[in-house]
């Protein structure tokens, strides 16, 4: 009897739940078209769980914020595939190469980031192909590592820095494009590209979040970012100079894609020796860098010499494990030319000479003045006595 009552209760609850889903209760907000009725559950800030690794996962969606984001016009199911079952036991990880059923206006084809994903996979940050996967792939970034779902904010540009600018411009658009939502989205999408998404310091912070980990970098034959923080470029960045060169200023200058960063020996890399003058002079770009850069100037090394050069002259090998040492050494031999090594040695000698000079001079001066002080005090005493 009790069992039947329990069953009846469960059936009733399920029926109500399904009805609610079927009817598609409106959340009461027109901020986002919730066609899948996902907000029925995901509007609650406390929704979430702890995954197998003990990490807290929050599944709350702020619909207003989402609607104002770059993906605000998409339905949840466009990106989150496999949500049909509740609870979502068969949900798949978001694949940014998925076609999201929006029409890309220039081609009238279904939109997808597949071309970017393809470029990315072939880049230094990509995980390689199925046949030729990169080692330590778990270290490499995914799309979401750099891209969060950014909000469309009022445009702040060279003509002003207030929300009023957006309001006035948008008002002119709406004069002809009467569907306000569409006009606002189009305007936001367009102006979003006109401003720098991150400050220079934020770009460096993002890149350093991986590139500062010297062990992780060594596994991939790369040096730690400390070699950048030893440059004048970094000084401009940390003081917040708008014209400052951050990582992407040189690694992804005008005409290149952040998704397609290649090793510098690749002829399509902006750091390839043949492309250096163009990169340093940044002709046509917003930043004014070294417009008069010569081949001699641009051909030089920008980052300070770091671990690789140190390894080649026999230092710092003990800092790393076997795998890291082997990979770093292999890359060091390819990256540091004999000429570079000569430069590094000369700079090192100058540094040592100056250290000895400074140490010697200061020791001599300090010793002399200390004795002088004692003698002067002694004389003062004698005169008083």
């Amino acid at each position, binding site marked *: 009897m009790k069992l039947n009552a329990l069953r009846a209760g469960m059936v009733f609850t399920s029926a109500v739940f399904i009805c609610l889903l079927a009817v598609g209760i409106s959340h009461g907000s027109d901020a986002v078209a919730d066609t899948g009725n996902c907000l029925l559950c995901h509007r609650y800030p406390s929704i979430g769980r702890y995954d197998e690794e003990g990490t807290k996962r929050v599944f709350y969606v702020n619909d207003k914020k989402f609607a104002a984001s770059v993906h605000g016009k998409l339905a949840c199911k466009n990106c989150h595939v496999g949500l049909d079952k509740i609870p979502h036991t068969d949900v798949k990880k978001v694949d940014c190469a998925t076609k999201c059923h929006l029409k890309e206006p220039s081609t009238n084809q279904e939109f997808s980031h597949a071309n970017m994903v393809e470029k990315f996979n072939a880049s230094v940050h990509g995980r390689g192909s199925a046949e030729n996967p990169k080692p330590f792939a778990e270290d490499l970034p995914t799309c979401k590592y750099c891209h969060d779902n950014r909000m469309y904010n009022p445009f702040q540009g060279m003509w002003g820095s207030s929300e009023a600018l957006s309001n006035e411009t948008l008002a002119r658009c709406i004069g002809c494009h009467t569907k306000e939502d569409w006009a606002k989205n189009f305007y936001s999408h367009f102006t979003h590209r006109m401003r720098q998404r991150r400050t220079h310091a934020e770009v460096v912070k993002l890149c350093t979040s991986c590139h500062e980990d010297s062990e992780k970098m060594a596994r991939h034959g790369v040096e730690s970012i400390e070699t950048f923080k030893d440059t004048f470029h970094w000084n401009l960045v940390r003081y917040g100079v708008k014209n400052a060169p951050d990582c992407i200023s040189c690694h992804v200058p005008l005409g290149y894609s952040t998704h397609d960063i290649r090793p510098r020996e690749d002829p399509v890399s902006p750091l390839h020796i043949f492309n250096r003058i163009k990169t340093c002079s940044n002709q046509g770009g917003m930043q004014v860098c070294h417009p008069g850069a010569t081949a001699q100037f641009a*051909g030089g090394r*920008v980052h300070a010499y770091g671990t690789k050069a140190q390894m080649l002259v026999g230092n710092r090998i003990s800092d790393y494990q076997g795998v890291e040492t082997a990979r770093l050494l292999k890359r060091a031999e390819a990256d540091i030319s004999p000429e570079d090594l000569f430069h590094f040695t000369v700079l090192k000698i100058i540094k040592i000479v*100056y250290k000895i000079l400074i140490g010697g001079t200061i020791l001599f001066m300090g010793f002399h003045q200390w004795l002088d002080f004692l003698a002067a005090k002694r004389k003062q005493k004698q005169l008083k006595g």
Partner: protein
Amino acid sequence: MGNNELVLDGGSLPVTDTATGKRYFVRLNRAERLQHMIFAACFIVLVITGFMLKVPDRVVLYFGQFGETVFSYRSLLHRTAGVVMILVCVYHVYYLIFKAAGRRWLIDMLPRPKDLWDMRDNFLYFIHVKKEPPEFDRFCYKHKIEYGALIAGTTIVSVTGLILWSQSEWSKFVVDIATLVHGMEAILACLAIMIWHFYEVLFKPHKSPLDDTWLTGVIDEEEMKEEYALHQKES
């Protein structure tokens, strides 16, 4: 004291204060004091604006949204002070060649074997082996070491500074050397000034809290006798 002595050439003849009858000796004439003042001001500006590139990130964070403005003034001030300092040096060379007081300065500043013996004797005096310090002429070995270091240091920082200013014209290797040398020389110069010069003019027991010769240009007879006995005997 009248104004005549202000343009005297740092010779050993005393000038007399008409009001008190006290005798003074000119150590630095007006031109020399002016050179020193401008050079010192430039040095201070260069040190502050230069080492702003070396301070830790947390210090830079204090500037907040004004960081860019601070940085642009830093760059402007550093270059301006550098140019003024070079101009003072150029004038000083002119002064040494074409002015009587300058020529005398140069001759008095030239190193001599006596400087080495003076340094040895002074160390012996420091360690109680000798009862009295050596008698110094107008410029003793301490001045000559400092003046020599100043010539070498200023030449090095000026040349490397100009290379950095025109960096696009040079190879990156030259720029790297210039950057390294400019910074290391600046550290050396600062420490030397603090330990050698500041001790002599600020911290030395009978000079503390400040030797005002850089302002007045003169020292009294007692100090002259004490520190430059040989020079005084020439009078």
